């Protein structure tokens, strides 16, 4: 090999031959392992970034579609002439198109059937909608025709060409709207819609002074930039100060889905990041052992004139090449995979995802991934720089320059930045980064502490503890330095992640599990005397009702005989900001009475109500929902005084309940024990469970006939979409955890292989002294077994703890231990650890004492 250098070592072709051709041919195993480690580690992130890119794009489009424009200025009244003037003065500085939308309720008559009913009218102008689409049953949406929504058409039995009287206007129905993209995930409305041209609405005579409705001015900028829109918003706020006038941007109307999906993708991205970190630890180890093996050759190269800098550049080039291959393979693999999965994802996310992959979006993260991966090699490369290469060849054993803590800083800093980037906020990213750091520090502490304890234990004892294998193993554990910590650490982190994901998955399952009996219709405003007849009516209609609950309106007047004043609370992620302000003053609520718990309730503190209702000699018991009680600052034992429509009612808080709101059944913050409360005026709620659509419609129609005051909300579609969403989210999370497990295994193998390799001479020596192969295996098993098992236990515990914290802060869940979620990964990991130790130690145990001799 060295005869090449006679022609001059600085020749690039020589370098190329050495670093690429010879290296890769000679060490296929190393490069293959490196390739797969990087592949596994980056696959998760690349896949997620592709999906996220698509989802974000779609959400943005979706958001635009929901609003139908770039910016909308609206109020519950028409804008005053002065306001309109100011508005257009600002907007006219930017080329744009605009239209006005008026939404009102009105009584509309169907001339063919002679029936009149309340309907929402949406009056639009030419150009509607700027974004999104109106899909008709037949034909295209024209801005000068009258259309009816499918829901209303079904319910009211209206057909095309029926004549409707709206105010003083009579118009023919030109078509049925099957889908209005501006409806989004809302999925329900109290009175389904009629679409009318604005010009026609003005002739109905309905818009006289005093009319109430929604009046909105929508604008689409010819040249849209976020900055322009923000500027416009600020200018308008300066001129129009009435808080009744609101300015809405697409991201504001972006709905729950957007938020939920964003949270999910952020979470998945961060989990995938952990997978990447694990794989990078593996890369670090691989390179470390590889460089050590090649050290002699590198020293020789250096001796013959190749500078250290050139060597390092060569190594970086090698690594870059492998990384490049990884990226190519990933894209080749993931893109077709995504194409096949796109339709499935679309139906379940409720968003139409385009199967065309925006490769550019996938590639945006690659440079970061590359940088991060490269940075993990920095300590090794710096170590090489510090190695006195040529000089070393005299020494019997070659060693690489040591790396220092500061060498890891580039990696650590870029990890932090990358976390913030993936979490889409400094807060989330930093929190994540800090938890990683905490895991790291805790693991280090545990290791050091454990070693200290072991050392105390070993002191002055012989080697037999009780056997020699054990003794040597324990000693080895108590004395190893950084390398031990790192192995322990990577294992602990892998176990932490797996445990965390499994625990969170269980939490999400518990929190968001949807009942089999999904409700399809909410029915309310049922008067007391109508309850029985309605129940029989429903049964006759083949639509039996479920969950019939009384509802009583009340105000909370006093707590412990002091007037109740609600303290200002920080933003609760479930409520909407605009209602928050008004809720402070208002203390009205809806309560119910019952002595049983529904399927979505669980008592977490205090005792359940006794059977049989409240006796005369004490205050009736009250049960509060956990989060509401927190918001209102109430606890068990508090005496509450309610004003129930003019009459005072006192009760005592007896227990706190946890409610699964996501079963979508109506639930109450306050329930009272059956007592005199039963006499208070009430209405009833009921739920119609999912069933055939025709039955639902007939039931609705007939009920409205018989009991005109009863109201309905149709939630079938909404619930269907949300439940699909959560199912997919959990599946995605599972995939990630398996990916991480795979990465963890690769690391495990690499680590134990590496550790054992270092012991080669020790093992050979012990063999020469009389240890049989079996005993050597036992020794290794003890040592690595203790290491891995303790790392695993720590990791599982930490993962559990982090999940509990996340569960508490984000999902507001109580502490819980799911043993099956701890034991099954424990069992699995143990088996995998053992198998891996055995596999990697098998080779080393074949160490030949012969090689201890000088001529080897």
């Amino acid at each position, binding site marked *: 090999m060295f005869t090449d250098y006679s022609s001059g070592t600085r020749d690039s072709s020589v370098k190329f031959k050495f670093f690429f051709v010879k290296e890769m041919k000679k060490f296929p195993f190393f490069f293959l392992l490196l390739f797969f480690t990087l592949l596994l580690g980056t696959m998760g992130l690349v896949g997620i970034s592709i999906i996220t890119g698509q989802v974000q794009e779609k959400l943005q489009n979706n958001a635009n579609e929901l609003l139908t424009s770039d910016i909308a200025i609206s109020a519950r009244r028409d804008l005053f002439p002065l306001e309109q003037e100011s508005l257009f003065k600002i907007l006219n500085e930017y080329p744009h198109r605009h239209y006005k939308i008026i939404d009102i309720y009105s009584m509309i008559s169907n001339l063919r059937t002679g029936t009149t009913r309340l309907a929402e009218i949406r009056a639009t102008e030419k150009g509607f909608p700027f974004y999104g689409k109106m899909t008709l049953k037949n034909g295209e949406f024209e801005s000068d025709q009258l259309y009816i929504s499918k829901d209303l058409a079904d319910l009211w039995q209206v057909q095309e060409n029926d004549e409707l009287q709206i105010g003083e206007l009579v118009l023919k129905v030109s078509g049925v709207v099957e889908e209005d993209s501006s409806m989004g995930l809302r999925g329900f409305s109290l009175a389904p819609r009629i679409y009318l041209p604005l010009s026609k609405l003005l002739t109905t005579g309905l818009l006289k002074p005093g009319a109430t409705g929604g009046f909105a001015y929508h604008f689409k900028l010819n040249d849209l930039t976020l900055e322009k829109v923000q500027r416009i918003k600020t200018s308008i706020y300066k001129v129009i100060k009435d808080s009744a006038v609101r300015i809405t941007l697409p991201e504001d109307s972006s709905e729950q889905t957007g938020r939920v999906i964003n949270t999910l993708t952020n979470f998945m991205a961060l989990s995938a990041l952990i997978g990447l970190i694990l794989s990078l630890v593996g890369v670090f180890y691989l390179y470390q052992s590889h460089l050590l093996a090649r050290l002699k050759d590198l020293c020789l190269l250096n001796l013959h004139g190749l500078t250290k800098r050139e060597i390092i550049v060569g190594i970086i080039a090698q690594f870059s090449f492998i990384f490049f291959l990884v990226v190519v393979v990933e894209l080749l693999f993931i893109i077709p995979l995504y194409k096949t999965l796109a339709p499935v994802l679309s139906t379940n996310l409720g968003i139409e995802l385009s199967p065309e992959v925006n490769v550019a979006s996938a590639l945006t993260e690659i440079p970061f991934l590359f940088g991060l991966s490269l940075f993990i090699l920095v300590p090794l490369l710096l170590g090489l720089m510090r190695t006195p290469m040529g000089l070393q060849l005299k020494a*019997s*054993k070659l060693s690489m320059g040591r790396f220092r803590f500061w060498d890891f800083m580039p990696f650590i800093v870029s990890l932090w930045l990358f976390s913030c980037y993936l979490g889409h906020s400094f807060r989330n990213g930093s929190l994540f980064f800090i938890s990683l750091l905490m895991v790291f520090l805790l693991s280090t502490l545990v290791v050091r502490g454990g070693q200290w304890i072991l050392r105390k234990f070993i002191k002055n004892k*012989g*080697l*037999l503890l009780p056997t*020699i294998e054990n*003794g*040597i193993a324990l*000693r*080895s554990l108590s*004395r*190893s330095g950084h390398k031990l910590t790192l192995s322990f650490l990577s294992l602990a982190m892998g176990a932490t992640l797996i445990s965390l994901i499994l625990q969170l998955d269980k939490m999400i399952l518990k929190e968001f599990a949807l009942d089999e009996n999904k409700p399809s219709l909410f029915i309310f405003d049922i008067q007391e005397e109508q309850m029985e007849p309605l129940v029989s009516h429903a049964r006759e209609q083949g639509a039996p009702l479920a969950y019939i609950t009384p509802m009583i309106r009340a105000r909370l007047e006093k707590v412990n005989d002091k007037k109740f004043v609600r303290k200002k609370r920080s933003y609760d992620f479930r409520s909407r900001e605009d209602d928050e302000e008004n809720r402070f003053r208002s203390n009205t609520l809806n309560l119910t009475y019952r002595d049983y718990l529904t399927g979505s309730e669980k008592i977490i503190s205090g005792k359940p109500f006794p059977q049989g209702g409240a006796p005369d000699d004490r205050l009736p018991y009250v049960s509060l929902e956990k989060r509401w009680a927190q918001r209102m600052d109430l606890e068990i034992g508090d005496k509450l005084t309610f004003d129930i429509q003019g009459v005072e009612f006192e009760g005592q808080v007896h227990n706190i309940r946890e409610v699964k709101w996501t079963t979508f059944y109506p639930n109450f913050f306050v329930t009272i024990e059956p007592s005199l409360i039963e006499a208070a005026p009430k209405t009833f709620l009921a739920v119609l469970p999912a069933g055939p659509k025709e039955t639902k419609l007939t039931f609705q129609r007939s009920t409205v006939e018989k009991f005109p005051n009863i109201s309905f909300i149709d939630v079938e579609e909404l619930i269907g979409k949300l439940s699909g969403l959560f199912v997919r989210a959990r599946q995605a999370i599972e995939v990630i955890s398996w990916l991480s497990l795979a990465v963890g295994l690769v690391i495990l193998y690499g680590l134990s292989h590496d550790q054992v390799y270092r*012991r080669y*001479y*020790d093992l*050979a*020596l*012990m*063999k*020469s*002294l*009389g*240890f*049989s192969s079996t005993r050597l295996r036992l020794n290794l098993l003890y040592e690595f077994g203790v290491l891995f098992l303790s790392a695993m236990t720590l990791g599982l515990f930490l993962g559990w703890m982090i999940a509990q914290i996340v569960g508490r802060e984000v999902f507001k869940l109580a502490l819980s231990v799911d043993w099956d979620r701890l034991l099954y990964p424990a069992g699995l990991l143990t088996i995998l650890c053992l198998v891996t130790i055995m596999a990697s130690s098998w080779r080393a145990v074949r160490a*030949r*004492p*012969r090689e*201890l*001799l*000088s*001529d080897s």
Partner: protein
Amino acid sequence: MMKVIELRKSYGQGESRVEVLKGINLEISPGETVALIGKSGSGKSTLLSLLAGLDRPDSGEILVQGQKISSMSERELTNFRAHNMGIVFQQFHLVSTLTALENVLLPLELLKRSHSLETAKNLLESVGLSHRADHLPSEMSGGECQRVAIARALAIKPAILFADEPSGNLDEETGERVMELLFKMVVETKTTLVLVTHDPDLAKRCSRIIHLEHGTLL
């Protein structure tokens, strides 16, 4: 003590096959100190490895204290070696995760000898390293490590001690001291010694010198 009959050993396959030992015949008496001298490539390390039971001959016999070690199974060989032989390596191999004392203790505990701790401590003292009892090999100098290795090799009171260029990795002065110690202890304990070396001066200190050249004895 030790008898070697027509020992042959080759390495490699087919074209690259090299015959390293070409029929060695040898006899060593108890208490003898034998120097095995030869240039590098002469096969002396190979011979040592066969005599010490670290490797197997292709043909021929090796008898140690009447026992045919050349035909023993792996397990029997390991056992025999553990009980009867001590080896000191050029690269002063010590178990890196054990202290000096523990390294000396290792063979004793392996054979479940009684009073092993005492024995080990005494041995360590006799090589002058009591003050290094709790130090790891990485914390000791080359010479100190080799001394510990000697203590370890002699711990079980082996019938025969093999030394493979023990001072080869040490500087002149340290090497001199280590060899002094080695010879002193061997003579004291009346242990048979087989010393592999390329240094003629060192060889002269042994009671017998055997030359090995191209796989045959001269």
